[in-house]
């Protein structure tokens, strides 16, 4: 309980700090919107002259892109991989290691603060307008909203665990950029952030199904646009839950190893 108060304090501080760097939030949002339009036009072109593709209408697809871009806007406010690398590079990781708290948890709670600020001041207003302006599909029932939110939160936690795990590999591979490339490649392809898994060739879809990444964007996006319902929805969310547990356990294991391995630069 006392611990939770401590971590929430970091959320609060991160929220305040974000307020001091408002400009960052707006530039991030700007690039987010650029990408939204880019993907919108690409899908528009791909759909031109066709009705449904794989049983999905253009309207659904567009909604998928918009909600996906919205979630990515939220995710963008927390960057655990970049942060851990930066802390190791500068040696500031030492300051985190000599505190009576757990770094992965405190970093997560700091991100909650960043996200809350970014969401309330930038992402939410923009996307409310977008959803109102364009006639897009949104959840039609309360339960669909709740399932979407729950799934989106699970997705965020999965990404956090996987991303920080990749970031911690920096402890072993101090000067190689390869680790992060693997992460960024995998998340952009397998998470369904821009291409829904239903458009994948079968073998790739099967592969994606057995990776944690699809739980990050694909599942909540699909719930949002109504492509995932009933039995399939329950299975998908169960899968998200399992992936969260697995990736969290791996994160803890890698962290405990990394903490012994750490070499602090400077001073």
């Amino acid at each position, binding site marked *: 309980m*006392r611990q939770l*108060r*401590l971590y929430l*304090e*970091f959320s609060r*501080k991160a929220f*305040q*700090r974000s307020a*001091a*760097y408002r400009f960052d939030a707006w530039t991030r949002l700007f690039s987010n919107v650029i990408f939204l339009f880019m993907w919108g036009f690409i899908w528009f072109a791909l759909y031109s002259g066709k009705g449904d593709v794989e049983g999905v209408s253009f309207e659904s697809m567009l909604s998928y892109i918009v909600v996906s871009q919205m979630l990515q806007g939220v995710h963008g406010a927390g960057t655990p991989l970049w942060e851990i690398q930066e802390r190791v590079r500068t*040696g*500031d990781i*030492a*300051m985190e*290691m*000599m*505190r*009576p*708290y*757990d770094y992965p948890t405190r970093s997560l709670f700091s991100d909650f603060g960043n996200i809350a600020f970014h969401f309330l001041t930038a992402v939410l207003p923009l996307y409310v307008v977008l959803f109102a302006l364009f006639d897009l599909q949104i959840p039609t029932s309360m339960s669909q909203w709740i399932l979407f939110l729950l799934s989106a939160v699970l997705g965020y936690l999965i990404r956090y665990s996987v991303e920080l795990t990749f970031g911690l590999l920096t402890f072993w591979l*101090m*000067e190689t950029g390869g680790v992060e490339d693997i992460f960024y490649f995998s998340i952009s392809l397998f998470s369904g952030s821009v291409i829904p898994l239903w458009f994948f060739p079968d073998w790739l879809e099967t592969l994606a199904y057995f990776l944690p990444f699809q739980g990050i964007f694909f599942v909540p996006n699909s719930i949002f646009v109504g492509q995932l319902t009933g039995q399939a929805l329950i299975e998908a969310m169960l899968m998200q839950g399992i992936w969260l547990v697995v990736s969290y356990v791996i994160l803890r294991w890698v962290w405990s190893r990394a*903490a*012994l*391995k*750490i*070499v*602090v630069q*400077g*001073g």
Partner: protein
Amino acid sequence: MGIIDVNHLSKQYFIAKRQEGMWGAVRSLFHREYITKTAVEDVSFSIEAGEMVGYIGPNGAGKSTTIKMLTGILVPSAGDVTVGGLVPYRERQKNARQIGVVFGQRSQLWWDLPTIESFELLKQVYAISDQQYRKNMDTFTEILRLDEFYQTPVRQLSLGQRMRADIAASLLHDPAILFLDEPTIGLDVVAKERMRTFIQEMNQERGITVILTTHDMADIERLCKRMILIDQGRVMYDGGLSKIRDRFGKSRILIVDLEKDTQLQVQGAELIRSEGNRKWLRFNREEITAAQLIQQVSIQADIQDLSLEEPEIDSIIRQMYEEGLSVG
């Protein structure tokens, strides 16, 4: 058993050799060569509760590496460390509650927050009671004049202010042990003195055990009865300060700026450096006084300016090597 026990402690760093070219990069994926750098080698000492010990040595001696192992940030390559009965790297969080740490080269405060908010965050981090927090803040503010920069973000503080803030921050949770890694580095004379006074007070009035690393002899002379001298990762001397000073601290350096470049012929002193009109003369103050030396020089040339230097720790260590002696 002291409050801090260090037994045969060693630390090696492995530095990956960079391989040349493309082929090298590919090869390094499979096989890497490392250079081993021994930063701390077979160091042992024991420190009693309430002691204030100077951990002293030239740059690169292994001081920071030792401190990092005592704080639990680094895992030893060999040997044992216990701090307040804990093995720091195994019980890092528990250890964190009983120690305070200041790294002179790096702030522990949150860069973008106003100073006071960093303190408030630490209050939460260490679950410090309102009463304890207020009491400590009052004391520290009075001695260190923290109120001058409460609202200033840490990144905008001067070095002196930052050190004051940092040392106050390290003591907020009433740690039993304080590690100070170069707490006076880069500070001006006034700021150094203020820092030393504060450290001394915390040690004497609160009984906090202090380990202080520095390469500034004046810090040690002012603060520590005991010093542990290390060089190239090894303990060269562990004991009282007076013995070292008597033995090696007798030399002084006279720096003179002459009117014009002159070949000086002085007795009882050695010309150790010469840069144009500026000359460095080393002498033993038991053999010749500064006044006698200055007189000798002034006969041969007009002196524009002069200053006297106490031996730096580096030169003391060099002297220890030259004379092939170890004390203690």
